[in-house]
């Protein structure tokens, strides 16, 4: 293997330390995937580079680095001065340098690029990775009494630096700094007035500045053509305002660390829903497009019932149906049907409503989803009926990542802070989960999440108010696919869903118990008595409630294994948090933790991941171990790249491995839905569920999304569709003269007729018609 970066380079620029490190790192990385151990070498070199930069070229041990860093960081305004109140020596001695080696190259590159605290003026990196974990732990411990702060910081340091648990990105960015905005998600409802639209724009900008992702309901905004009082004119409708939010969010880059991000939610009865579906299309009037903004539909049951029954669907201008956003379940359906009847009877102005077949709109939604990845499909009624905060307000949207379900109103912007347990760090050597350790992680993590609510710096008063009243937190998970692979279970295997069920029950049980324990110590959240928790309702109970509200079964297994009745009695007495669990996508923190994100599968057995910090190669590590054990690694690796990570196309791969390690598109989407349904069963907020489709036509997606709805999911998230063609490979010899690319052969076959018969060229075959 030739080294690409010549040594000549090092000599020429020997003085430039940065470039030297970068050259060494790239020289190692460029040997991937042929030499997997090069990844460790690149990581080691990057660690050196970070230390070199942070310690100004001196070789300091971690304790000394930490002492100097915190003093300097406070003096430079990069750290919260209150970090000076800890027992410094104890913390400094606890930093464990060996834990740096748990971080892979992609993790370190991501931390160095965006997470490590830098000097505010010179942009020099100030902290090394273990100092980051300690800084975050200290930031979280600021909510503890001074005499126990150091002890708690040590516990959280241990939890995070061992990668058993990681808080969400805003907490990792900002904890322990003067700008301690630690929450991931903000949910807001925009009112139908210019004051609200523009006032919200200001608020969204401030939320985005400090790394909050925004979910916002825009259903109330009147449709194009609606009268505008006071100016003797009519409204330009919803779309131009969404374009405004698009430009706003694109302008906020969070100092280059993260993009400003926002998702707008619309209910599918809005008169402009079809224009909404086109927001992400790549052609058409650019002022009616939003390339940065994410879009989601907040779908009531009534719509999907009409899709199933092949009935008409009615669109309304919210100006004539202002009550609909605040209704859900049966109440929504009743009011909606009344409005439909009034429209048919001529009681609604003709410009304010329209009728179309429900299935026509559904197909347009699925086509848009397949071609642009948007809008995401979320379920308004499941979201509301299954909420533990039902009665405290209506949920008008989910968040940026479709896992948060919290009420919003004119007075309240919902906030949620998140963190996820890394299941892969709770595995025993034989691939089994260490349940006791998992329970301890959940308890320790939940206290950290609860603290965020108190130490958080709220960018808006509406947000501060809501968060103090409901104190929601969202505990999630990552590493599900890795743990499955280690246990020898394919994602497509029904045992995967069984495992998900058992796992989610366990996490939920211990998270709720931890919140009860916190309530004993710190008191319940202020709105507790008006929540479902006070009635003794548990997440599982809401499955049957949803079925009752819908009048059709919710198709999910109801089995339980843990002593829930005992817990129910404790829950009745008090809960510290209005919401406890939410399964977030964990795209970046899973990269830091070196495992698979959330409930996601391995995309392929070798693939690349494109992020803000770079494009990283990933090889399924469990497969690598297995191939090495069988002495097949050397021989199969080149084939694996040529096969684009699909073991079925690797000649000589043992059949049991082909079965055990499918790519994301080989797993039927129904399996992903089933896993999510079994997790949602136990989770009081939501489950962000990515779906992977090998389908070619939008109609083929319908059954999957309808199944998601019937199984009681609150939402789905990204829709990945298998690309039909592959690009010309750069490192693999495919001789097109002799072996035509697979996609050409597939399309040719389609064109030649379903049975693969060669077209008789007489105009009789199907494809010639």
């Amino acid at each position: 293997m030739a080294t690409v970066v010549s040594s000549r380079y090092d000599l020429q620029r020997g003085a430039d330390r940065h470039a030297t490190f970068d050259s060494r790192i790239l020289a190692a990385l460029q040997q991937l995937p042929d030499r997997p151990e090069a990844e460790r070498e690149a990581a080691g070199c990057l660690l050196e580079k970070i230390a070199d930069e942070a310690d100004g070229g001196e070789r300091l041990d971690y304790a000394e680095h930490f002492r100097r860093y915190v003093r300097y960081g406070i003096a430079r305004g990069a750290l919260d001065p209150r970090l000076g109140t800890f027992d410094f020596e104890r913390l400094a001695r606890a930093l464990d340098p060996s834990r740096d080696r748990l971080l892979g190259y992609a993790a370190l590159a991501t931390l160095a690029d965006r997470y490590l605290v830098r000097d505010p003026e010179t942009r020099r990196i100030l902290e090394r990775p273990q100092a980051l974990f300690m800084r975050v732990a200290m930031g979280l411990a600021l909510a503890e009494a001074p005499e126990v702060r150091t002890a708690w910081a040590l516990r959280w340091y241990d939890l995070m630096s061992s990668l058993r648990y990681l808080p969400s990105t805003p907490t990792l960015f900002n904890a322990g700094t003067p700008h301690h905005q630690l929450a991931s998600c903000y949910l807001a409802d925009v009112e139908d007035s210019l004051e609200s639209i523009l006032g919200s724009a200001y608020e969204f900008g401030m939320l985005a500045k400090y790394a909050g992702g925004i979910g916002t309901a825009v259903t109330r905004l009147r449709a194009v053509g609606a009268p505008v009082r006071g100016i003797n004119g009519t409204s330009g409708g919803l779309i131009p305002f969404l374009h405004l939010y698009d430009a706003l969010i694109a302008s906020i880059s969070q100092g280059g660390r993260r993009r400003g991000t926002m998702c707008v939610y619309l209910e599918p009865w809005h008169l402009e829903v079809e224009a909404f579906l086109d927001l992400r299309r790549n052609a058409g009037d650019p002022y009616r497009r939003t390339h940065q903004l994410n879009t989601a539909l907040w779908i009531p049951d009534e719509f999907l019932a009409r899709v199933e029954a092949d009935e008409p669907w009615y669109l309304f201008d919210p100006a004539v149906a202002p009550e609909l956003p605040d209704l859900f379940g049966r109440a929504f359906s009743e009011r909606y049907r009344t409005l439909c009847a009034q429209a048919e009877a001529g009681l609604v102005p003709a410009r304010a409503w329209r009728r179309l077949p429900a299935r026509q709109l559904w197909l347009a939604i699925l086509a848009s989803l397949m071609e642009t990845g948007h809008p995401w499909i979320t379920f308004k009624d499941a979201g509301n009926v299954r909420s533990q905060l039902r009665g405290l307000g209506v949920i008008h949207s989910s968040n940026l990542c479709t896992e948060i379900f919290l009420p919003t109103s004119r007075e309240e912007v919902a906030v949620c802070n998140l963190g996820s347990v890394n299941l892969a760090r709770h595995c025993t050597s034989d691939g089994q989960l260490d349940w006791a350790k998992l329970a301890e992680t959940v308890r320790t993590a939940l206290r950290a999440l609860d603290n965020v609510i108190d130490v958080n710096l709220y960018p808006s008063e509406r947000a501060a108010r809501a968060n103090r009243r409901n104190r929601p937190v969202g505990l999630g998970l990552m590493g599900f696919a890795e743990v499955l692979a280690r246990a020898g279970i394919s994602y497509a295997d029904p045992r995967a869903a069984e495992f998900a069920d058992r796992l989610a029950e366990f996490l939920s049980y211990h998270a709720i118990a931890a919140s009860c324990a916190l309530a004993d110590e710190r008191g319940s959240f202020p709105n507790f008595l008006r929540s479902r928790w006070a009635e003794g309702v548990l997440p599982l109970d809401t499955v049957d409630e949803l079925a009752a509200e819908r009048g059709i079964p919710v198709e999910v297994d109801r089995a339980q294994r843990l002593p829930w009745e005992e817990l129910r009695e404790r829950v009745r007495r008090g809960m510290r948090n209005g919401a406890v669990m939410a399964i977030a996508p964990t795209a970046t923190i899973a990269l830091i933790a070196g495992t698979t994100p959330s409930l996601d599968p391995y995309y392929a057995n070798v693939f690349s991941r494109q992020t803000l910090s770079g494009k990283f190669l990933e090889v399924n590590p469990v497969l690598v171990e297995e191939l090495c054990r069988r002495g097949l690694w050397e021989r199969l690796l080149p084939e694996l790249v040529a096969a684009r990570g699909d073991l079925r196309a690797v000649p000589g791969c043992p059949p049991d491995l082909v079965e055990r390690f499918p790519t994301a598109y080989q797993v039927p989407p129904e399996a992903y839905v089933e896993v999510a349904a079994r997790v949602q069963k136990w989770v009081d907020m939501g489950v962000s569920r990515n779906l992977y489709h090998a389908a070619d036509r939008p109609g083929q997606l319908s059954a999957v999304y309808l199944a998601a709805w019937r199984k009681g999911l609150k939402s789905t998230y990204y829709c990945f569709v298998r690309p039909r063609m592959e690009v010309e490979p750069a490192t693999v010899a495919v001789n097109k003269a002799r072996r035509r690319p697979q996609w050409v052969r597939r399309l040719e076959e389609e064109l030649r007729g379903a049975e693969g018969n060669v077209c008789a060229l007489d105009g009789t075959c199907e494809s010639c018609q």
Partner: protein
Amino acid sequence: MGRKLLGGDPLAAVELFPLSHPWAYAHVQQAKHNTWFPEEVPLHDDVRDWYERMSDEERHAVEMFLGFFDPMESLVTTNLVLGLYRVVTAPEARLYLARQAWEEANHVMAFEYVIKTLPVDRARVFRLHRDHPAVAAKEAFQRRLTEAWLAAPEIETVEGLRRLVRNLVGYFVVLEGIFFYSGFALALAFRQRNLMRGLCSIVDWVLKDESLHLSFGIHLITTILEEHPELMTPAFGEELRALVLEAVHLEEAYNRAVLPEPLIGLDAEALNGYVRYVADRRLEELGLPAAFGHPNPLRWMATQVDVPEIVNFFEARNVHYEVGRERT
């Protein structure tokens, strides 16, 4: 086979079915799904990279890249429209040529979008193909093939058909299959260091289109050689091989001008090793023996191009969604 690829009535209206060359129609279908527009890719971060993170040598390399791609894409359109459309008459192949001409125009506009967004020396970049000898030499190479064909575009004679095949090899295999692939590697080397990510998303899309063009071209050439077995003789094979090797030399000189000093992660020698590796693959695809037999020095292109890619939400443009699906 029913209709031949070449030599039908050039003015006849399209009569697509029954298809004689399903592979050509397959390329049309896929091309339709790959429709994209440069404005979908934001370039804010590229502009910041340019000011904050890039060295003069790196900026020079990007300017050379843009100064080559922007005008060269248009040469392909010219050759298609003036040279090929007249003689390639099978309607399914013509549909593809028309589509390809649009794609080349889209690429010209895409690189122009980049040139007019980045703070490059625009006048210098736009003039580069005239002012810089290494770029001008590549342009002259392409023009020579177009001029030779247009001087006597005959498909009735063996010599005429051979000039056509030389033209096809010069465009589909050399320009789109070697020159462009060398340029892609140069651009994607920046992404290894997390630079120019917007430009690289555009490159991802262009690469997807060019993969189709190359694949179509190889199909076209091999079909013509099958329809006219008299064309391929050892001497003609040697001639085509010489054409490819001439192009490799031009590309090597160009890359030395692009990378007079090594950049972090890429130098001219490694890039030219890749050019030779790619040239070998193209020769084999034409049924000719490889010329160099060296391994590919840019193994990292596997990460950039070969393996399936998943895009982290919100962090980069996902270029994998395909449009124009049936509404059923």
